[in-house]
């Protein structure tokens, strides 16, 4: 299992690096689709079918929106010429990335290894959800019953974002 996920993650990293360096914005958007659909396969392998369904829908909508925006523009990537200052910034960035990596290694020391997770607080959810909520799907049981206010907040965020996007697109620009 760990090997399969690692291989798919490797492909996702390659796709992400290509997306950042592509000369044409349309190929960058297509490459990000590779990362998103790789994530769908990972979710299916990790026994999360609900997440896989939602991720497929969301990824397709995101791709359509991004392609619509990119096709409306010049599509060309902006050229940057490296100078002496950028070398200093590159070294600084490398040090910061190395530091972040060190702290991440420190942080995952206490984590359970992959596949040996122990249920702590979700043991109550797993054992009592069917009697308490009447839902055989534990994820929707948690989402719509134990944490219903969380889902309400999520709906509010979605509504606000849709309203904001609509306002931004309808607004007439100042001349």
């Amino acid at each position: 299992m760990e090997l399969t996920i690692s291989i798919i993650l490797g492909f996702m990293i390659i796709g992400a690096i290509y997306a950042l360096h592509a000369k044409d914005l349309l190929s960058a958007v297509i490459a990000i689709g590779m990362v998103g659909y790789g994530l769908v396969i990972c979710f299916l392998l990790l026994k999360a079918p609900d997440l896989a369904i939602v991720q497929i829908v969301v990824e397709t909508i995101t791709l359509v929106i991004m392609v619509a925006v990119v096709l409306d523009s010049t599509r060309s990537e902006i050229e940057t010429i490296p100078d002496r200052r950028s070398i200093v910034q590159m070294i600084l960035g490398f040090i910061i990335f190395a530091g972040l990596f060190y702290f991440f290694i420190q942080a995952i020391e206490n984590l359970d290894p992959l596949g040996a997770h122990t249920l702590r607080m979700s043991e109550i959810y797993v054992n009592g959800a069917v009697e308490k909520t009447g839902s055989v799907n534990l994820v929707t049981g948690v989402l719509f019953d134990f944490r219903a206010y969380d889902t309400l907040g999520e709906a509010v965020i979605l509504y606000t974002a849709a309203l904001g996007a609509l306002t931004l697109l309808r607004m007439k620009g100042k001349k």
Partner: protein
Amino acid sequence: MTVYILCFVLFLVGLYGVITRRNLIKIAISMSIMEFSIFLLLVLIGYIDNGLAPIVDPGTTGQVYVDPLPQAMVLTAIVIGLATTAMLMAIAIRLYRKYKTFDIREIKNLRG
């Protein structure tokens, strides 16, 4: 442990993109890469070997299910990620119509 580290490498690729790219669309893409790596890390933490998908078959007992709590959290986060991406795209297309470029340096110069 390798998978966690690869997840973090994917996160760092997204961070690198946010820092170095000058194109608004590329910055939006980098932010979704960072989101994806976080989703995968949370679901990986909740995985149990030989566990079933968290859908209970009534009548059976003693089954091992993977942790449903991280999955519920990630489900919320995916939808919010879609909302933020749509918002970013709306802002990007708005700026493009005004300045005819996605270059953030140009947009900064044209301020006022």
